[in-house]
């Protein structure tokens, strides 16, 4: 963990000591993991070690919780999160082809982050915009009627010239 993280670690530890005092302090593990992800963007092994020490919870248990919930990311996330909806409506309208096109273009698999740290690719289950199927969400913006062809140009919108 780099030194720049010291204030963040401090904040996390303060959060832990505030919840530890409460009744059933251990049960705040999920809240603590949320806090960690908010602070660092993902839950690293080093952070789980710190949580284990501060909360007195075995790392095997923390690892179990962190891997159980898809929300928690165990590796650093890209600047932009790309979620391709694989819900039923999107799927029948060709979401698998859109996903493949994005994978090919970014040269990563689902769950991975591009080398330049720009994009993290995810699959989503129904984003509730079935009328626009197939749907891709980049950060908090929804793109409808995505095709194999325009998927790549949508991604390019997010690459800012240096």
């Amino acid at each position, binding site marked *: 963990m780099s030194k720049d993280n010291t204030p963040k670690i401090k904040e996390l530890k303060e959060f832990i000591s505030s919840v530890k005092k409460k009744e059933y302090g251990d049960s705040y593990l999920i809240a603590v993991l949320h806090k960690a992800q908010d602070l660092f963007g993902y839950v690293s092994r080093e952070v789980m070690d710190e949580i284990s020490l501060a909360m*007195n919870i*075995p*790392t095997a248990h923390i690892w179990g919780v962190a891997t159980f919930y898809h929300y928690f990311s165990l590796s650093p996330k890209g600047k932009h999160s790309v979620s391709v909806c694989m819900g039923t409506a999107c799927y029948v309208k060709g979401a698998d082809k859109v996903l493949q096109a994005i994978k090919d273009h970014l040269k990563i698999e689902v769950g991975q982050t591009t080398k330049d740290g720009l994009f993290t690719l995810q699959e989503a289950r129904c984003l509730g915009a079935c009328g626009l199927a197939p749907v891709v969400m980049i950060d908090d913006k929804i793109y409808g009627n995505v095709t194999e062809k325009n998927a790549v140009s949508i991604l390019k919108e997010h690459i800012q010239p240096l």
Partner: protein
Amino acid sequence: MPEKIKITINDKDYEVRANQTIMQAADSVGFKIPRLCYHPKLSIEGACRVCIVEVEGMRNFVASCAYPIYDGMKIRTNTDELRRARRDIVELILDNHPLDCHTCERDGNCELQRLAYAMGIKTRHFEGEKKHYDIDVSSTSVVRNPNKCILCGRCVRICSEVQAVHNLGFSHRGFKTVVMPAYNEAFSDTVCSTCGQCINVCPTAAFVEKNYTQDVFEALSRNDVIKIAQVAPSVRAAIGEDFGLPAGRNMEKETAAALRKLGFDYVFDTQFSADLTIVEEANELLYRIKTGGKLPMITSCSAAWMKYMEQFFPDLIDNISTCKSPMSMMGAMIKTYFAEKIKADPKNIVSVAVMCCTAKKYEAARPELMVNGMRGVDHMITTREAAWMIKSAGIDLVNIKGEEFDEPLGMSSGAGAIFGATGGVMEAAIRTAYEILTGKEMPDLDVKAVRGLKGIKEGAVMMGDKEIRVAVAHGLGNAAELLQEVRKNPDKYHFIEVMGCPGGCVGGGGQPYVGLNCIPLDEGLLKKRAEALYNLDKNKKYRKSHENPDIKKIYKEFLGEPLGKKSHELLHTHYKQHFPQGIIPGGGKC
């Protein structure tokens, strides 16, 4: 009188104790509901659903292991519908399990196999995706094979609830759930104490010991080396079980004979080196008491306990007796004293230890226990591995003519025999320390306070006008509890014995898998194995380690005196703090 309530099971009325589960109540009246993830010594998981029963008025079947009874409850345990549902449940478990029973380590000893048979699964109706994971063979002692895991969670529970190691957990979810250490770390890098209790409670072969039988067979086939075996006390008390004999049969002479038939040139008794350990350890205790050394002194014989201590209680390292374990003392004596005696180059000796333990595999490989640059114990095999080798070589252990151990490392006192049971090391040490300190015979050699299966036992022995306060813990969870007390109250005891496994070595991670109608960790079973050792003690000519004539001889001929220069070099060692990942509640950084 405990409160009684009326329930009906399979249309028959019973009056049973209140405040228990359906399964417990059914057990008490003779209905053994099929089960899988349940273990009476562990918390209730309710994961496998095999133990479902029908309760009148309930819409769904309930898991009998987790559901409490109430007055007037009407239960059915064996309807057609239940049988079908149970069969489907077990079939679905089998569906994601390798179909390699005939080549599996647990063939014939597998609870899933037995259950499938009992459920009457003759054909397979489901065919689905199967999991494929790498097998973790990184540990010296324990092999983790997630492909055979059925997610009953017994290993997770024993590792945390009984052993307080907390090395295992469920990671990921649904179909992708895997039992693994934190961060999917290689086992060799984890806090695993290598005690092997996960192996004992696993219903399948998701955990097995690292098998060294091939190495031993290869060594045995060589003519250019001298092959020497040593046998731990608890092996003789349990190995018969692997050959269909009832628990508690002492197979000492048969085991010695069988090992010779396997090809060992000499078969020595670890009970001899247990006597040696006691002479050193009792003297060390008295030396510490006399000179104001670090107290309480804590025993160091249990290999799993040593690894656990280095990780979780490094602040107590100075309290640990510097004595090597009986296995390692024997290894050292084989490669020095005995090699000199038979004028052999110790490099041409292959020393094999047959132990009830998986952690001793880790101990045997410890660099700090090397003897003149060599390993004292080249290979360590468990009771199970030894039993398999004996069977595999076509040796009839049951009907074999018994033989004695070899001299000069084969004679033992009763004190050496009881080393295998919890409290045994303490009792043996007290017998010797008493006589050294007071110069008088101990009036009653049986130290009852430290016997039995209570988790933490305490006692005090008057040695002359000095009161020696002792405590004994077995199972690492009990040990952790006792040592927390020591941290808080360092003057409470003089001497503490810790054994890593429940029941002591008789319940070791390398002992035979339990047979039908028995469960791992069963107290009745542990008691019977321990009884075999206490009976050995009762009938021995010598019952005190320092009276063993061969122990006297080895000091006279070779070692000099207890705690002397040579002893120090060959029989003592030091431990150091280790920092693998993992946290024990209350334990601090590890």
